[in-house]
């Protein structure tokens, strides 16, 4: 009887989990296996893939080193700049605003998501292009300033686009912060700055790390913003992949790049989370 009940419960659990597992298996695990297989293969003469076992594709990685470095540098830098801009906003929203206006202000943060990122990035193209800000600068004597199609423009674009994703997790962890801990800190003689660095910041680290991980991971795969604001076709790895799969049809090389990227991301993430857990003394992860 008990056994039957147990079996039934297990079947219910299996039924509940099955759709998600099937989805992930078909659209994540299988493609990833295919990518692994492709990455050790060769490009067929007419493009695409032909079976082989060679590490030649990985040896060839330096050929896309520019895109690789652009991504590996701009993604963390972009997410760090996001953090620097987002933290004060999140702090203000969670700690300083009166609860009456908090909901309104927090929803303003996500308002940009109501418009497509494509449209908003096009707007930036215009603003940063020769008829936008450089034109205005020209009127006050700074001629020939180029902003569009520079790494700076890409950085600006990604910080703009991903800021809400950084604000939200930090806001959540700051909002949960027990105000009495701040009072206790002050009571024990800590000045406000000291309280911030000894109590507020460490206790909001799970949110900070979640934000950093979220934005960095998404940036590593970013395609649209570097394509529109960065000029050259192979600015980011995302752009290089599109180029390799759709234009030059070198699937094995594209797969090798993608596999390398995944390995780097997993590695960086593991280290980052370990550091965060250690400092915050908890394994909670603040997701929105």
């Amino acid at each position, binding site marked *: 009887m008990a056994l039957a009940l147990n079996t039934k419960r297990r079947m219910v659990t299996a039924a509940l989990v099955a759709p998600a597992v099937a989805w992930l298996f078909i659209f994540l695990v299988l493609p990833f296996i295919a990518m692994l297989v492709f990455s050790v293969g060769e490009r067929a003469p007419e493009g695409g893939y032909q079976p082989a076992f060679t590490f030649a594709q990985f040896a060839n990685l330096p050929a896309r080193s520019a895109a690789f470095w652009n991504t590996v540098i701009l993604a963390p830098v972009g997410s760090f700049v996001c953090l620097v801009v987002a933290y004060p906003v999140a702090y203000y929203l969670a700690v300083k605003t009166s609860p009456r206006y908090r909901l309104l202000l927090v929803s303003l943060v996500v308002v940009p998501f109501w418009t497509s990122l494509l449209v908003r990035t096009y707007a930036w193209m215009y603003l940063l292009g020769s008829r936008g800000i450089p034109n205005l600068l020209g009127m006050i004597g700074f001629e020939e300033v180029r902003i569009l199609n520079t790494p700076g423009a890409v950085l600006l674009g990604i910080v703009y686009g991903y800021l809400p994703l950084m604000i939200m997790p930090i806001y959540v962890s700051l909002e949960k912060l*027990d105000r*009495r*801990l701040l*009072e*206790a*800190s*002050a*009571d*024990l*003689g*800590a*000045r406000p700055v*000291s309280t911030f660095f*000894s*109590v507020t910041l*460490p*206790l909001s680290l799970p949110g900070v790390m979640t934000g950093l991980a979220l934005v960095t991971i998404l940036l590593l795969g970013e395609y649209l913003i570097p394509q529109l604001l960065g000029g050259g076709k192979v600015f980011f790895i995302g752009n290089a992949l599109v180029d390799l799969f759709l234009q030059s049809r070198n699937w094995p090389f594209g797969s090798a790049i993608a596999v390398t990227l995944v390995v780097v991301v997993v590695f960086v993430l593991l280290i980052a989370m370990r550091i965060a857990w250690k*400092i*915050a*003394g*908890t394994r909670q992860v603040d997701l929105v």
Partner: protein
Amino acid sequence: MTSASTNDIEFRSVSKSYGAVTAVSDINLQVPKGAFVALLGPSGCGKTTCLRMIGGFEQPTTGEVWINGQPMNGVPAYRRPVNMVFQQYALFPHFDVEQNVSYGLRQARPRINAREISRRANEALEMVRLGGFGKRRIHEMSGGQQQRVALARALVNKPSVLLLDEPLAALDKKLRTAMQIELQTLQRELGITFVLVTHDQEEALSMSDLVCVMNAGRVVQLAAPREVYDRPSDLFVADFVGKTNRIAATVDADGSTLRLADGSALSIPGRTGLKSGSAILALRPEAISLHRQNGSAPGKLSGIVTHRIFLGSSADYSVAVEGLGDFLVTADRRDLADGDLVEPNEWVVLNFDPGAAHIFPA
């Protein structure tokens, strides 16, 4: 200067309001150096607001709070010579026990060297009998242990006043009693002023040398625990501190006789300043004696036992007296002649000394 003052804490016509709501109105209060004072009152009476104004977490709307003979208006919490044990302790979850306790020392400027910090932190932990627990994380400690950590953390800076905000509320009864004794001993040993906020009258009476009863943002009575219990200044105090029977009565024109609702008269000799008119007689349950009614025993009132709450060495009886309503009587088992408990539905007679009653204008 500070040495000239004998009061550690002084409230000078302090009021505090939040918008239209007045939390504390016109409080004048002096806490002598080295006293253990309890701010006692129901929730919302303003006791916590008072404590927070001493700590520097709230600023008075009008009036001044003085600590150590210095006005504290505008002085932020981190500059005040007081420390607080917070309700639910507010320990830092990302620090271990020793880091929590040493936090105050690490804020000191000029800096104290690391060895000295560690020595003093461990000394404080020894004081609350938590030696050797320094490396534990906060969530590994029990409620009672967390309470001690909070105490050590607040005392490590050697404050001149220790503030305690309902410190025992989260502990079970046995632990609470043990901590009451411990807190009292600690206070005697250290000789620093303790200000305790509590809504638990037993806690206030048992630990403090001075009880400040508050109601609706005002101080109703400030006196020694025994004084507060034996001579409550008004009906609120009589009701809030301990249990009280309230009996409606009328004071005669000459102010020497009290007439109860059932028509019986009590002479109240030696009471001066009683105004004639309606009054309330307040009587402690243990000031009334209860006997079985067996014809001969004379009594002022007679009634029937409706409920009995057995308490071990004594019992609380609810006695319905015709014309006067229900009386609560605490009777020691020893004081009953035969069998040690009176059963419900038995007829009893009640006696009391009018001198033990408090009479308040209604």
